[in-house]
């Protein structure tokens, strides 16, 4: 089991979270006309065997979207942060 250190709620079992996919993929601008950019955004993934930045949402807790850095070989979590910057 993964234990994700939610910055809002503290360490929680990953069953409380929903996985949201690769967080390193950047969405093209809304009016970007380049089909190649959209193709890469929708389909192409690095899929590394090693550190991976990924979205998780704490659906059974604070419902915040988080960015978790996790090693896909052994599930060791290096860092957890809010996906959105907190207002100052």
């Amino acid at each position: 089991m993964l234990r994700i250190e939610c910055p809002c709620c503290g360490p929680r079992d990953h069953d409380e979270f929903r996985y949201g996919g690769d967080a390193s993929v950047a969405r093209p601008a809304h009016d970007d006309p380049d089909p190649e950019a959209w193709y890469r955004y929708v389909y192409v993934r690095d899929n590394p065997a090693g550190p991976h930045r990924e979205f998780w949402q704490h659906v059974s807790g604070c419902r915040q979207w988080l960015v978790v850095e996790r090693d896909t070989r052994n599930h060791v979590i290096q860092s957890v942060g809010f996906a959105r910057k907190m207002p100052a």
Partner: protein
Amino acid sequence: MRYSAFSIFRNGLSGQKNWQRAWRAAEPKGAYDVIIVGGGGHGLATAFYLAENHGVRNVAVLEKGYVGGGNVGRNTTVIRSNYLLDGNTQFYEFSVKLWEGLSQALNFNVMFSQRGQIVTAHSADQLDTFSHRANIMRLNGIDADILDRDEVRRLVPYLDFSDTARFPIHGAILQGRAGTARHDAVAWGYARAADGHGVDIIQNCEVTGFVRDGDRIVGVETSKGRIGAGKVGLAVAGHTSVLGQKAGLELPIESHVLQAFVTEPLKPLVDHVVAYGADHFYVSQSDKGGLVFGGNLDGYNSYAQRGNLGVVREVAEAAIALMPCISRVRLLRHWGGVMDMTPDASPIICPTPIDGLYLNGGWCYGGFKATPASGWCFAHTLATGKPHPLIAAYGLDRFRTGRTLDEAGVGPSAWLQ
């Protein structure tokens, strides 16, 4: 040596001491016409059909571990061709036809057992979609039957037909020619048959990089040194991205863990392969008596060949909802395999944009049933440089051109559903 009743008798007389090993312990030569990376079912089948169908015998299969140690030994052995979409339907039916003659073709008993697969329907609407699927299958010459509730109850009375069932069974779709095979025997049978044609099967030989001449790939770097190749075929399910990146391939693949389970042995109970239409659960009974079953992916990127308890609980819940009678059966083992998940849940078999490099991957969690057809078609692609007609829909460019083959019907990132 060919296996036969006579060879069993003769070896019985000499105390079982004179059996030859099933395939040679080959060491790599300097170069081959074709190198297949990955000694799983698909890689070994490819090597066998390269030799058998195309006369290409100067072939090596490189396996980083041992034959049968990867996904071919980690699946739940179900074989079926109850697909809906053009491209899939014909391909998987071709595979079932190859399975039907495989033990004879390989001179190795792969224990293919056509016990039939029943998928339960839990609403009138679901039964309608199953009828649609059955019609498509029949139009393609594949056997399919729609069963009403009473007919399902006669065949599989141990499912929950009570008034308290959470999702009452309305009916089912049955493919009578579906079934299971002994997964290890498939790997060993292909390895032995390929070896018989002169293919070198090299175990404990990890590919660490590619050798290039200009833009063309002309060999591989391995833990046993550099080996030259006319063509290189990747068949490394689960790790396609890892190796693809070394060759410079950008792929629409994520690796996820899928768990499988087996219970303690029981007396014969489950005569078919039964799949639960209201959740993701399917079960068959092995020849040893254990119930073999599986469910959903763990659902996040992973290269760890082990799962977690959350999915164990979910699968157990689905199992007991469908089959209350197994609630006290003990779970013996569970294990995980690493799956190449593609965005449309269909495989990728094709020549790649890199000269000399061919790709067979992206099998999601349905690769076992495809083993013979995948090997057959990939061998054709390697030998001729062009995709076999049966895999025309499985090209890498289908994502760019919008011709995805979305059998699961869930859109991009099928693993997030």
